[in-house]
C-alpha cells in the first residue's frame, strides 16, 4: 500500500517536471511571437528582412536586418568549413585509430574544450587572433567574419567530435570484420564501411555544431567588428544577429519599437535554429 503511494507521487513529480519544461518553451515562443509580430505589424516584415540599413537610434530609425542575416550566415558557413573536416577526422582518430591511452586523454581534452566559456574564447581571439589575421593576410582590419569563423569553428568542434565519435563507435563490429575478411585495407574499411554506416549520426553532429555556432553571441561580438554593412568577402567585418541583440538590449526601453525589433531578430534566429535542429532530428531518427 505504502509503496503504491510512493510510486504514485514519484510518477506525478516526474510528469510535472516534464510538463513544466514544455510549458516554458511554449511560453517563450509565445512571447517572442507576440513582441515580434507587434513589430512586423508596425514596421513591415519585408522592410525588416530586406532592409539594408540598421540605424536603430536615429530619428526616424531604420531596422533592416538583411546585412545582419548575411553576416550570421557568412560566419556560420566559415565556421562549418573549418570545423566539419577537422571534427570528423578527430572523431575518426579517437574512435578507430588512437591507442587506448591517447584516446582517453584526447577525449577528455575535447570535452574540456566544450567547457571553455565563449567570452574567454572571444577575448583570447581578440588579443591574439585578430592582430595575426590582419598582419598575415594584409587586410585593413583583423576584425572580420574570418576571425569569427575561426573562433566559432573552435567552439563547434567539441560538439561535432563527441557526437560523431559516438556514431562511429556504434557501427557494429561485424561490419568491420566483414570488410577486413574481404581483404579491405584499414582506410578502405573506414571510408567505405564505417563512415557510410555512421553518416546519419555524423550529419546530426554537424547540424548540432552549426546550431551552436549560429546562436553564439559573445565571441562574435568581440571579434567580428560589428559593422552593419553587407560584406563583399569573408575578410570584411560583419555584424551578426545575435551580437546585435546582445549589444543593444540594454539601451532599449520596454515596449518601444527598438525593443520589439530585437524580438523580431530573435524570431528570425529562432526560425533558423529550428530548421537546423529539425534537419538534425531527421537524421538522428534515420539512424535508429
Amino acid at each position, binding site marked *: 500500500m505504502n509503496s503504491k503511494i510512493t510510486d504514485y507521487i514519484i510518477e506525478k513529480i516526474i510528469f510535472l517536471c516534464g510538463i513544466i519544461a514544455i510549458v516554458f518553451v511554449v511560453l517563450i515562443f509565445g512571447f517572442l511571437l507576440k513582441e515580434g509580430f507587434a513589430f512586423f505589424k508596425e514596421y513591415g516584415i519585408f522592410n525588416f528582412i530586406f532592409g*539594408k*540599413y*540598421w*540605424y*536603430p*537610434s*536615429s*530619428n526616424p530609425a531604420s531596422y533592416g536586418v538583411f*546585412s545582419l542575416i548575411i553576416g550570421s550566415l557568412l560566419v556560420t558557413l566559415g565556421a562549418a568549413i573549418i570545423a566539419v573536416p577537422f571534427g570528423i577526422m578527430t572523431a575518426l582518430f579517437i574512435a578507430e585509430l588512437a591507442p587506448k*591511452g591517447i584516446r*582517453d*586523454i584526447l*577525449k*577528455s581534452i575535447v570535452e*574540456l574544450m566544450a567547457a571553455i566559456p565563449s567570452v574567454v574564447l572571444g577575448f583570447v581571439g*581578440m*588579443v591574439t587572433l*585578430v*592582430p595575426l589575421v*590582419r598582419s598575415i593576410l594584409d587586410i*585593413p*582590419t*583583423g*576584425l572580420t567574419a574570418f576571425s569569427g569563423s575561426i573562433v566559432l569553428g573552435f567552439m563547434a568542434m567539441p560538439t561535432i567530435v563527441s557526437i560523431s565519435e559516438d556514431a562511429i563507435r556504434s557501427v557494429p563490429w561485424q561490419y568491420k570484420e566483414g570488410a577486413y575478411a574481404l581483404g579491405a585495407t584499414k582506410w578502405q574499411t573506414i571510408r567505405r564501411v564505417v563512415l557510410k554506416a555512421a553518416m546519419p549520426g555524423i550529419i546530426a553532429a554537424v547540424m548540432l555544431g552549426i546550431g551552436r555556432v549560429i546562436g553564439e553571441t559573445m565571441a562574435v*561580438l*568581440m571579434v567580428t*567588428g*560589428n*559593422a*552593419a*554593412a553587407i560584406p563583399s568577402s569573408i575578410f570584411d*567585418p560583419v*555584424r551578426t544577429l545575435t551580437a546585435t541583440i546582445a*549589444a*543593444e538590449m*540594454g*539601451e*532599449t*526601453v*520596454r515596449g*518601444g519599437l527598438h525593443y520589439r525589433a530585437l524580438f523580431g531578430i530573435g524570431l528570425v534566429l529562432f526560425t533558423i535554429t529550428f530548421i537546423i535542429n529539425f534537419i538534425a532530428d531527421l537524421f538522428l531518427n534515420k539512424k535508429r
Partner: protein
Amino acid sequence: MHRTKFYIVFLAIFCVLFSCSTQQGKNINAGMQIKGSDTIVNLVQVWAEKFSQINDGTNVGVTGGGTGTGFAALLNNTCDIAMASRQVEENEINLAKKQNVSYKEFIVGLDGLAVLVNKDNPINDISIDQLRDIFMAKITNWKEIGGEDRPIVLLSRESNSGTHMFFKETVIRLNDINSKDEFSPKALLMPSSQAIVDEIYQNPNAIGYAGIGFMNGQTKALSVSAQNSIEYFYPTIENVMYGRYPISRPLYLYTNGEPKGIVKDFIDYALSEEGQKVVVETAFVPIKK
C-alpha cells in the same frame, strides 16, 4: 580510469588557482546602484569608493553599459543614479512621463573626445570637415589627407553609447539638428572605448574616438580644428575647459526626481571641491566654479 584521474588533476589545479584569487566582498550597508555611460564609469567608481569611506562603508554599486542603458535602468527602477555623457532626449523624457519618472539633471564635469590613430600614422592635424568625410566614408584612404597609402578603418562605439551619439551630433551632423547624416555602415561598432584603443594600438589603418581619459602612450591623439577655422587644438584639459577644443561635452548624473538621502549626499559630494579634484585625477575636466 585514466579519464577520472585526468579530471581529478584538473580539478585540483583549479582549486589551487581559485583559492589564490578569491576574496570576500564586504557588504555592510544596503546602498545604491549607479549605471550608465562607460565614459565616466572610472570617475564615478573613484567617487563611489571615497564616498563609501566617508560614509562608513555605504555600498555603492557602479556599472557601465552605455548612457542609454543608464536611462533605461532609471526608468525600469533598477538604479538610483544614471551616468550620462549626453543630455536626455525628448522622446526619452516623454517615455519617462508615461511611467511617472522625471529626470533631474546635474552637470558634474567636462570631457573632450580625442580622435585617436595609430602611433605610426604620420598625420597630426585634422579639420572637423575632414573627420566628417572620413567617418561617412567619403574619404577612404589616408593618402587623401596627406598620409600614407593605406585604407582607413573606422572604429565607432555601439549606438547605445553616449559617446557615439555625441560624436554623431558634433562631427557627422555638425550640430545641425535637422541633419539626417549617419556614420558609414562600414564603421566597426566596438563594445567599449577600451576595445577601440586596443584595436588602434595594433592597427596602423585605424581611426577612432574616445574620451580624453583614454589617451595614453599606446595611441596618438590628433589636434582638431573647428569648422571655418585653421587653428588646430590638441585635446588638453585647458583647451577643453575654455571651449577651444571643438569636440568636447559636459558629463551628467541623472536622478529620478529631486534626490533624497544618500543619493543627494553622493551628488553633493561629486560637486564638492574634493569631488572635482577626483575629476582632474581621472583625466576629465572639472566644471568652472
